[in-house]
């Protein structure tokens, strides 16, 4: 399809002995305390924890927005030294650009790589269709609802074809109905694309429902205190999430995650 799909998969995300401290000497705030974590290609890892525990810090370190105080992070055999196109980021607050229309936002990644206009427009339209925003392609982002903006952001990341998608509480600011709809959409996108996903959330239910693997982080300084596989994300698309939520397995894992958090 495009030059990027020829690229081989970047490989597993490895977080090795990562510690992170904010602030300068005298006023140091430890945010992460020795995190060791490997995320295999194709996994959908959800990371839950109380607010302020450092889960966003971990995501930003993997994204390459900052460097860890100690330890290192790599993707495949390459150390993370900064942001890169193979690691797409979906932010909690949509970071869409108001000077571009919705289509222009989604086509931005390919544009930066020099993909011809016709091709990148077609690509943007494909992903806008995938997230159900075809009718809004010519609008400006600020004319869209919060849920639509978040969908646009997801389409923008996917249109850039990253191997790894880092999502920082992407549905946290949305109302419950929209959130549930987007959770379903995320699962079908993940099934369709096979991306590696790290999904940060403060919702226990969301973590258990979406993850193939659920992590829980302790309050600051963050450590990973629970790491369990979860079967629900891999369930067939035909199964209603309501039925999943009603199952005893779901209740059991939810209980354990909740215990780990508190």
């Amino acid at each position, binding site marked *: 399809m495009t030059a990027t799909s020829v690229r081989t998969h970047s490989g597993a995300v490895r977080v090795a002995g990562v510690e992170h401290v904010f602030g300068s000497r005298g006023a140091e705030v430890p945010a992460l305390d020795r995190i060791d974590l490997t995320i295999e290609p194709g996994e959908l890892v959800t990371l839950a924890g109380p607010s302020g525990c450092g889960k966003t810090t971990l995501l930003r370190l993997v994204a390459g*927005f900052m460097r860890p105080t100690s330890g290192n992070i790599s993707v495949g055999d390459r150390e993370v030294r900064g942001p890169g196109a193979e690691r797409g980021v979906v932010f909690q*607050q949509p970071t869409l650009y*108001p000077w571009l229309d919705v289509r222009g936002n989604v086509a931005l990644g390919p544009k930066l790589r020099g993909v011809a206009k016709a091709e990148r427009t077609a690509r943007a339209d494909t992903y806008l269709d995938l997230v159900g925003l075809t009718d809004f392609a010519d609008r400006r982002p600020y004319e869209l609802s919060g849920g639509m903006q978040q969908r646009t952001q997801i389409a923008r990341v996917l249109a850039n074809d990253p191997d790894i998608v880092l999502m920082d509480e992407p549905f946290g600011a949305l109302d419950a109905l929209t959130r549930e709809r987007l959770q379903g959409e995320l699962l079908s996108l993940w099934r369709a694309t096979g991306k590696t996903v790290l999904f940060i959330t403060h919702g226990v239910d969301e973590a258990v429902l979406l993850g193939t693997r659920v992590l829980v982080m302790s309050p600051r300084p963050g450590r990973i205190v629970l790491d369990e596989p979860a079967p629900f994300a891999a369930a067939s698309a035909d199964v209603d999430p309501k039925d999943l939520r009603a199952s005893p397995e779901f209740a059991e894992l939810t209980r354990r995650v909740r215990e780990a958090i508190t």
Partner: protein
Amino acid sequence: MRRRPRLLGLSWLPAVVTAVGVLVLWTVVAASDWIQPAYLAPSPLEVWDAFVRANTYHPVGGGVDRVVRGEENYFLWEHLVVSLRRIAIGLVLAILVGVPLGLLMGTVESVRRVAGPYLDFLRSIPPLAYMGFLVAWFGIYDTSKIWLLFLAAFPPIALATINGVRGVREDQVNAVLSLGASRRQAVTSVVLPATTPDILSGIRVAVGFAWTTVVAAELVNGLPGIGGLAYLSGTQNKIALSVACILVIGLTAIALDFVIRLIERTLAPWRGKA
């Protein structure tokens, strides 16, 4: 969200009533004996007459048949155009220097630390303080005036650009870097467009500043030039002409501001919405 005032509508009525009131009051004062000598208080009609004479070929008056072209051999609108042209050149130079400098100072911390104090220093100098120095360096003709306008206009533009750059949300830049942008692409495709509204605000401030400055600068060898004409006509006791010039200067400033607001709305329609 604040609603923008409508450009057209029924809101013009109070403004028209006020304007008529001012004109009536002015006429009454001018017709009265309150101000002596009477030529110091021309009526609106006399000012209009001076305005028309200044824009046409007219007899020099005083029983002499000779016909002259406008005032000081230029029509009033030509005086205005000359002043506007000086502003335009000074402003273009200020934008060409101020915006890249602002982008550089906004993005590179060390450049900001080194160059910042100089910019603050330049900004704090009233532009007219340069005038004597500039005349000594560049002569009494347009070069010194354009330098002056440049020096007046570029600090507000550079400062607004710096503020704009620093106000760009960090994650807007992070997002484009995660899409694979290089540092340079991040500046051209995110930082610059995100800063556009601030740059335009800076330009608006700079135009106002430059306009004030050019009119004052034309006190020295300012002809042709609307500021020069306003000054000279006053010293020659052509008060009606002087008032006409003052009105033209004020209305031009308002028109300039309106045009820039229009450009702002066209180039940055998202302002205040995102």
